[in-house]
Structure formats: C-alpha cells, structure tokens
C-alpha cells in the first residue's frame, strides 16, 4: 500500500451556466475548484460533503467522464487529462465506476449476463461468447449472485442485487480503481452492510483502490483509510480516518461530525451539536476568501479576504482554515 496510482493536482471543473434573464449571459459554476489528492494502491479514500459540494463531479472528472477545465489527473505517472476517447480507452480498463441508483444504471432491455459482459466485449472483442459467459458466471458468483440467473433482466432483482450487478460489471475487467458514487445510499440498512462487506472483500482479493463518495459519514468511516471533506468544491480537510473523527481541525468537519445521529440514546442525547446557521451558499456566487465563512461560527474579517491554503497538522493530515491553530483540536 505504498505506490501512488492516481495523482490529482489542482483539479477544476467549472460549468458555464446561464445567469438568468434573457440577456443574462453565462457565469461559471465552480463545481470543483482546485482539488488535489493522491490515491495509493489498495487504499480507500472517502470523499464526504453535503449535496452540491461537488463530490460526484469530482469522481467523474477524475475518470475523465467530465472534462476538467483545469489541473491534472495522472494515472501511474502519465497525464490523462483531456485525452480523446480513443487514447483514453486503454486506461478505462483500469478505472471503473458504480452508481447510486442501482436500477437506473442498468439497461432494462439487456439481460444481466449481457450487462456484466459488455465491458469485456468492448475491451476484449477477441474473447469468444462462450468464454465471456463463463467469466460472467465466475464474477456473478464472486459478488454473490446465483450464476443461473444470468439470463434474467434487471427488473427481476431487488435494489441490493442490482447494486451487486453494477459491482460485477465494474469488476469484470479487473480494474485497479473503482469510483463508488454513493453506492449504498439507496439501500436498506441490512442490505447496505452486505454491499459494504462485498466491496471490502473484493478490495482485499484484488488489491483494488476505491474512491468512496458518500454523504453518510458512518459508512465512510467504516470503509475508508483516509477521508477528504469537501465544501463548495474545495477541500476543507484530509486526514486518516481515525484522526478525522478523533481530532477534526476544520470547523466544518467538526460541525459535520457532530451532526451525525448516533444509534445510542445516551450518547446521542448527551453529545454537543455544532449547529450550522443557514444553508449552502449558491455555487455561482461563492463567498470571497474562505467559502465556508458564511456559516462558520469563528469567521472574522480576515476570512473574507484571504482564501486559506492547505496546511499540515501532522503527516497525512492537512486542513484549510486560517484559524485552525487558534481553534485547537
């Protein structure tokens, strides 16, 4: 778990959106604004944040499914930003994605055998139909689907099973990294645990790296090695998972963690909640300086002027807040 497979530097995705009105023109919406991180082989990096913080856009931009407007994504040392579809294709074998809505991400007119086998057909057209079906059966068995269901259609499966189909499709090429975009959010608690366990088992067996995007901090804590907290397209804090829960430094991380309900009546009723005022500001007109300052209980004039840069708390733990030292742990 030492070699870096993915290196993201100052990644930006700015969408041009109408300003409103007939002659309004267009303004940039900074969905992802200068995000840097690296992902090591066999590691899970959790990406958390509230809706609209840019976590899904970030996942897609890393895979070049959305073209970044700035910055670099390096895959095993070579830059893959802005490659055309054809040059990108060999890299795609190594990078896959699974989505939040398990049923919507499966073509209803294909059998699950065809769905899971399609990446093989695209990337290895030389494999015979018979061999392909054999590989699909093996993968179905690995993800906990009965191989005799190979000719069924997606609507015949429950949500948890559909997510297993999505995972099988992503795994069939034996990729090195999978972007998991809220993979368990739509599932019931008991099924959620099954899918989380499956992802962890696959990671161990194949040495996978995962970018695990979720708004559920409890799940992220369980599955990740390191965690990145996003707010309005910017990284607030990155730290190993135990540090981010035991010793959060950014006021936003603290608020986020304190807000998560804990299934334990005594602890839940006695904990201190940092209640944030107001709502997420519009990403079209983000606040000047630190983007979090409008909801931060500690913001002062300095925060409106200067955008904080990531500073190191200790090895592997960085925080972007002007006052983190003053605020303490």
């Amino acid at each position, binding site marked *: 778990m030492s070699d870096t497979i993915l290196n993201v530097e100052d990644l930006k995705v700015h969408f041009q959106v109408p300003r409103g009105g007939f002659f309004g023109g267009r303004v940039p919406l900074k969905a992802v604004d200068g995000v840097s991180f690296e992902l090591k082989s066999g590691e899970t990096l959790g990406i958390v944040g*509230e*809706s609209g913080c840019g976590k899904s856009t970030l996942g897609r931009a890393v895979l070049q499914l959305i073209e970044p407007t700035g910055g670099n994504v390096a895959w095993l040392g070579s830059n893959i930003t802005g490659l055309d579809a054809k040059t990108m294709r060999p890299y795609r074998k190594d990078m896959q994605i699974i989505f939040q809505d398990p049923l919507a991400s499966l073509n209803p007119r294909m059998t699950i055998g065809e769905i899971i086998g399609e990446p093989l057909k695209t990337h290895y057209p030389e494999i015979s139909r018979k061999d392909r079906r054999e590989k699909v059966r093996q993968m179905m068995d690995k993800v906990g689907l009965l191989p005799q269901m190979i000719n069924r259609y997606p609507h015949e499966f*429950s949500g*948890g*099973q559909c997510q297993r189909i999505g995972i099988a499709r992503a795994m069939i090429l034996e990729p090195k990294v999978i972007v998991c975009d809220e993979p368990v959010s739509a599932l*019931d*608690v*008991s*099924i*959620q*645990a*099954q899918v*989380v*366990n499956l992802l*962890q088992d696959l990671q161990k067996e194949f040495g996978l790296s995962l970018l695990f995007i979720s*708004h559920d*901090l*409890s*799940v992220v*804590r*369980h*599955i990740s090695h390191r965690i990145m907290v996003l707010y309005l397209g910017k990284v607030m804090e990155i730290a190993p998972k*135990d540090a981010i*829960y035991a010793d959060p430094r950014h006021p936003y991380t603290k*608020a*986020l*963690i*304190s*807000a*998560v*309900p*804990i*299934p*334990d*009546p*005594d*602890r*839940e*009723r006695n904990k201190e*909640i940092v*209640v*944030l005022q*107001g*709502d*997420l500001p519009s990403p079209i007109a983000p606040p000047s300086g630190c983007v979090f300052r409008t909801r931060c209980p500690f913001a002062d004039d300095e925060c409106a002027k200067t955008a904080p840069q990531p500073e190191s708390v200790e090895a592997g733990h960085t925080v972007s807040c002007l006052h983190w030292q003053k605020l303490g742990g």
Partner: protein
Amino acid sequence: MSPILNVKNLETRFQTLDGEVSAVNGIDFHLHKGESLGVVGESGSGKTQIFLSIMGLLAKNGRSTGSVKFKGQELIGMKTGELNKIRGVTMSMIFQDPMTSLNPYLKISKQMNEVLIEHQGRTEEEALKESIQMLDLVGIPEARKRVHMYPHEFSGGMRQRVMIAMALLCKPDLLIADEPTTALDVTVQAQILDLMRNLKKELDTAIVMITHDLGVVAGLCDRVMVMYGGRIVEKGDVRNIFYDAQHPYTQGLLESMPRLDEAKASKLHAIPGQPPNLQNLPVGCAFQDRCEYRKDQCLSSIPNLIEFAEGRAKACFREAS
C-alpha cells in the same frame, strides 16, 4: 391519563392485479400526550402504511379494519367530511419530500392561510399574522418577507420547515413525521431534529417518527416500535431497544449499522438475504429466512407479539437471551 391515540388490531389489505397484499397486520399500540414514538423498519415493512391507514390516506385499493381511537373518537370507517375536521387540525402528517407536498403554483402565504381560514375560521389578516409567527417558530429567517414566496424559492431544508410550520398551524396534538429528514443533509437534519425536540417540549405535541435511521430514533424518541413484514416484531422504551434488544431482527439491525462514534470490527455484521415480499409472505415468521435462531416452530406458525416485561414486547419464539 388515557392515551390520545389507541390502535387495536389494525389490518390493512391492498387488492392488486397480482393478488391481495397484507401491508399491515394485527397492529396494537398507543401514544400519550407529549410522548414520541419511533417506528423503525426497512422499505416495505409497512411502517408508512400504518399511519396512512390512520390518517385515512390509503390508496384507492386499500382497506383497513380494526380500531383506531384518536382522543376517544373512532377513525376507521369515519366519513371523509368528519375526518377532515381532524386531519391537519388535531392530527397532522409531514412527508419525506416537501416539494411534492406543497403546491408549486401557490405562495406559501396562500397555502398556510388556507389552513387557518378553513379550519379555524380566521380572517385573512389574522391568518397571515399567525402564519408568520409559525414560520418564525420553525426558524425561517425573515419570515415576514419569505411568507410571500413560492415553494421553489426555498431550499430543501427550508421547505421541510415550511411543511412542519403548516402541520403545526392548528397546534395539533399529534404530529406524524414520515422520514422527514431522509432527503436532507446531516447538518440540516440536525436543525430539523432540534426543532422537533423543542416542539415536543414546548407544545407538548405527541410525535410519531417513522424512519429507517436508528440514530434519529435514539436522539428523539421515548418509545420504539420495530416493524418487519407488516408486523410489529418488538416494542419497548428507547433504552431497552438499543441496549437490550430481544428480537433477532432488532439485534441484527443494530449490529449492521456502521458507527461513527467507535471503530467497529473490520467487517460489518450483515443480515443475510433480503426483506420479504408482502405479497408472498412465508407461512410462519416473516423473518425465518434471515434468522440464525430459526427452529421448526418458526416455519409453521406466526409468533404473537407477547409482553415479556413492563412495556416491552416481542414477537419471537426464542427464549429471552
């Protein structure tokens, strides 16, 4: 003190093209003033249908039998006209998705005033004043200005506050909240839960919290009812349920939750299999396929919900652990 809501042997059946669906089976419970009840279960466990039955909001193909007494009045079989004097007045419900419950064509002021004018006979002017007060109470900034906006001009969290404000306009004795925070971000969820806790304290409103999130229940509820396959499988005080769960399903549910406050073992305890199809429930206990303590009896007969200690009951053949 007699309970404000008393439900006895409530059953709800839906007639569908594929046959009859038993969504709610033999439900008994009661609720006192100022008390909060958590109703926990997975999708399809029947938790929402119980309260749609109570509110008389079932889909056309649904029929309820049994008894629901609200402040001594029988609701099952009541005429719509009579029911409308109760719904939204002394008993209100809020739903998961506030956007679909608000009329997008009408200003918030119009939608809120209507409730007061219709049910309480207020004048337009009085109604507006009360609406603004209520929006203030639920923490909407600049309520005086915001009351004249349309639903789309509010964020998700604000919309849910508007829904709660509307539900509270007539100072109901019972507020039924169906997954009110599921679609919201955690920081906003914390604000809404805080608001509900205050309502309970200040207005003595009885609250039913329907949710799949055990964390929400832990923070808000006095008593808990766990649903599985259209039945109550366990009920008890919140501390009993969380610290001394007796039904294997409740135990499994608690163990399968990843915890933010402590590092769990490297693997989550998952309940194998999947929730049952209400259309095709097995003979015997609905949880039998997923239960590690299954015995022959579980396959042939349905366990009754039996009180085994003061205020605690479970529906399981297994001896207490």
